């Protein structure tokens, strides 16, 4: 079947042995690739602890990877999260997926534990493990640099020290950020995976793929959110700073307020002006939403800039950029890190200065003191240890990103029902509630949202499995991506049949969480959102969410899901 290499790599770090395994046709047919592959592959071991030798860490490409389909450079990393205890996948960009597929593999499944630090090097069919004790303590960019021009997935000191929200950093600044998969890698004593491939990627019908690509590009060019004056291509995701501010749903001071007066100090415009940014992006992407300063520093994404800004009461752009750099270099998730420190500030009744923030981030990454050790556990475990778990602004122990749910009720429901915890990307209702894509919905209403969230969850499970980028769905739709998928693989899918696969993936994730003890009671928001109003203005009222309306919508969601 074109679109897949037909084989994967299995690596047992305990024995140092590698195996080639066949990619099952049924896996491709039922679970598409990327996230779907990983979730299915992990399903028989999901009850193991994240640091059990037999717990797999999976890197999976998708059928579109390496083809001419727009945003075809992404892939997924899957394991069980040390932070949330749920099954967990991260969609990640850069060029690793493309190189891996060119090297001839649909996926890598890593199990076992090495007795010493190792790195895996893949050059087409040559796969080797090399001792990497010399890289211990290296930052992610230092680690990456030691593999020359190979594409590299590396953990930093945080992954080595099993920080529960350690990330894996690909190609120096593309992060498998959330959920602590870097700690899974660290528990295996795997410092890096470097890959270089040289094979061409086969496609069933090049002309049909070209036609689908043109349709997608026309739609992207017509999308204000993508290629528009203020779109992602121009400002990156930081374009959202001004918008979310204007909608008064900007999490501020650990979600105690929803407006931060100085947000314009770190807007996308300010960043572009101050750092003279250039565009960069994942392999195969025409949008190029990553922004890099003239001296090569990576600009923070919207979630990061807002959480190191408003959430921590800081309007100093340079300090925020530095916080982001520390997170990337040490290999920690910037959203959870910023939110954990905001939670600490609230519990302690203090305000952390920029210098203290930078110091804390470094110390957390190496668990260098008692406080850092406690904060390295994430906001929920830290707040619980202080007898105040309600101060953790998280769902299923995953810290919420930078959209206050009191300002978008679909987002409130989607945070709660998310299979990986407080994540905006599972259903991304911000798309219609705020960005008016594909059309606008009433952000202050739960009406109809249960079904919309269910459909979007299925849709994004497909997107993460194809593996495409969610941002292109601000313009294009599954209709066009079904054509791209068919032209690559020769299958006969349409948007509805792909959504069926998305539903299958979603339901499997839910079942895996249930096997680990999760119940409906975990599908809930922190109490703050039901009892405290946000920051209203004369024109926009941000009220506490009506709990009964929320529960009704959640109940409707369960009925729609058939649970």
């Amino acid at each position, binding site marked *: 079947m074109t679109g897949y290499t037909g084989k994967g790599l299995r690596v047992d770090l305990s024995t140092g042995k590698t195996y080639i395994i066949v990619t099952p046709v049924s896996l491709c047919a039922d679970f598409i690739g990327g996230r779907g592959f990983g979730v299915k592959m992990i399903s028989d071991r999901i009850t193991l602890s994240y640091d059990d030798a037999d717990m797999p860490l999976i890197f999976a490409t998708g059928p579109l990877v390496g083809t001419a389909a727009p945003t075809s450079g992404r892939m997924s990393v899957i394991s069980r999260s040390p932070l949330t205890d749920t099954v967990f996948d991260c969609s990640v960009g850069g060029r690793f997926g493309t190189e891996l597929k060119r090297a001839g593999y649909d996926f890598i499944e890593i199990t076992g534990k090495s007795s010493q630090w190792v790195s895996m090097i893949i050059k087409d069919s040559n796969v080797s493990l090399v001792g990497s004790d010399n890289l211990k303590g290296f930052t992610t960019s230092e680690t990456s640099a030691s593999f020359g021009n190979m594409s590299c997935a590396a953990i930093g000191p945080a992954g080595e020290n099993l920080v529960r929200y350690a990330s894996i950093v690909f190609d120096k600044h593309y992060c498998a950020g959330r959920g602590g998969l870097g700690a899974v890698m660290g528990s295996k004593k795997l410092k890096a995976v470097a890959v270089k491939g040289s094979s061409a990627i086969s496609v069933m019908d090049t002309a049909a793929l070209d036609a689908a690509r043109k349709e997608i590009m026309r739609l992207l060019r017509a999308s204000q959110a993508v290629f528009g004056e*203020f779109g992602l291509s121009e400002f990156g995701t930081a374009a959202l700073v001004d918008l979310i501010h204007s909608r008064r749903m900007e999490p501020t001071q650990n979600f105690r307020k929803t407006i931060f007066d100085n947000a314009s100090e770190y807007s996308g415009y300010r960043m572009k002006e101050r750092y003279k940014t250039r565009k960069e992006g994942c392999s195969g992407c025409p949008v190029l939403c990553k922004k890099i300063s003239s001296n090569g520093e990576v600009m923070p994404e919207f979630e990061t800039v807002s959480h190191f800004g408003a959430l921590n009461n800081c309007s100093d752009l340079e300090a925020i950029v530095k916080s982001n750099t520390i997170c990337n270099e040490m290999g920690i998730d910037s959203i959870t890190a910023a939110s954990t420190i905001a939670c600490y500030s609230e519990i302690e009744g203090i305000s952390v200065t920029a210098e203290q923030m930078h110091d804390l981030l470094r110390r957390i990454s190496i668990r260098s003191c008692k406080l850092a050790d406690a904060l390295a556990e994430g906001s929920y475990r830290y707040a619980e240890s202080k007898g105040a778990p309600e101060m953790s602004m998280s769902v299923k122990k995953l810290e919420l990103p930078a959209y206050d749910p009191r300002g978008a009720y679909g987002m409130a429901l989607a945070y709660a029902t998310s299979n990986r915890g407080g994540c905006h990307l599972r259903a991304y209702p911000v798309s219609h509630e705020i960005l008016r*894509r594909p059309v606008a919905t009433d952000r202050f209403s739960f009406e109809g949202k249960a079904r919309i969230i269910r*459909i979007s969850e299925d849709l994004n499970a497909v997107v993460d499995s194809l593996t495409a980028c969610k941002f292109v769905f601000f313009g294009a739709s599954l209709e066009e991506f079904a054509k791209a998928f068919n032209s690559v693989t020769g299958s006969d899918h349409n948007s509805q049949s792909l959504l069926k696969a998305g539903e299958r993936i979603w339901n499997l994730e839910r079942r895996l969480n249930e096997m680990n003890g999760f119940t409906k009671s975990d599908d809930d928001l922190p109490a703050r959102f039901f009892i405290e109003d946000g920051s209203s203005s004369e024109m926009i009222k941000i009220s506490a969410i009506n709990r009964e309306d929320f529960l009704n919508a959640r109940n409707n969601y369960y009925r729609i899901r058939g649970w």
Partner: protein
Amino acid sequence: MPATTTTGYEAGKDKMISHIEKYTAKLVNQGLSMPNEVTMMLLDADISANRPLDDCSPELLGVFDRMNINSLLFARPAEPYWTIINFLLEHNDKGARSNKIVPQDCETRTFFHDIPVIEHFSSDEIYEALSARKSVIIRNRGIASWGHVSLEQAFVSFSSTCFSTYVKFFDDMLQIFSQDNADEQTAKQLNLALGLLKPSIPDFTTSTLHKGSAKTEIEALMMITEAGKAVVRHRLVDSFFGNISVFLNEKIYISQTGSSLEELETCIDEVPIDGSSSAGITASSELSAHKNIYLTTKNKAILHGHPKFSVIMSMHAARTASNEGKCNIFGMPLVSGDIGTGSRGIVNTVPPAIKNAGCALVCGHGVFTASNDDFNAPLTRMLKTEEYCLKECINILRACCPSSLTKFLPNLYN
């Protein structure tokens, strides 16, 4: 007919119902269908519909069962759309039954690609077609469309199907007649459509809008809202396409992307012209074109609509003119332009034309008009251009009509 749900009045049901009633009314008010021809269904945990579910076709309910969507619309289009669609189907067939219509206007090519056609009003066929496209034409029955976020999507798809088939019909007719390929059957069909045309063409009597340029933000917002209602009332735009802006105090006030032009009260973005705020990420996708116009001219108000005959004549002119760039219609320069950015994008082609002529006709897309104070002149210019294009279309058809067919075309001479 009152709207209903499957299980009585549950929390929020009222809102679902008012949503259905709003879009049913829009279909009727915009002359796209008749109330008793419309089935509109919205699904959360329960189905709400504009008629008792027992009266909804089991075939449509079957589609809803199988698709992962939240809204479904089925209606027979009002005249002249239905006659026009039937002609296109017949004309398309040419021996074998055709399974799609391929419109040529810019919006439809971008957002719809093509429109599938099916033979039977059956769940299976409708499901197959709607799984791959946003709307489907069902022979002898009507148009079905869907949404996965809102009924608005289903409404927009239905409306766009009517718009694009209308444009294609007259564009095809101009080609058939000017290439001397008309036969008796075609002439009869054209005559039939022309006889039914009235409800779809604008009221050409000019409206008077707020006079003078905006002095305050409130005035700017009021002017945009008023102009939005006027272009919809005059049928110069399908309600969800087109965009409007005012320039005041170094800020552009512009309708948001996908906003309904007759309901702009809460859908206007404020965009500093120096780009210092990106809150305008939700602004119309033509924001950059508006901005470039304000940066290069003294204009203070811009109107962009999709009047049907202006679009039809732009396509005809582009096909027949030797040099598209130098062509103009009724003094309006004809320019090329894809939606959004890109070298052939409106952002690059429209501003120079506006600078020179104060207006521009974008091939296969629509009309931009502007003025240095209020919306009166832009609205009048758009109306007059549309009136001219309608007449010119008839004139061309008349001039090309073989004498042997004139007797089948009495409406052409009205």
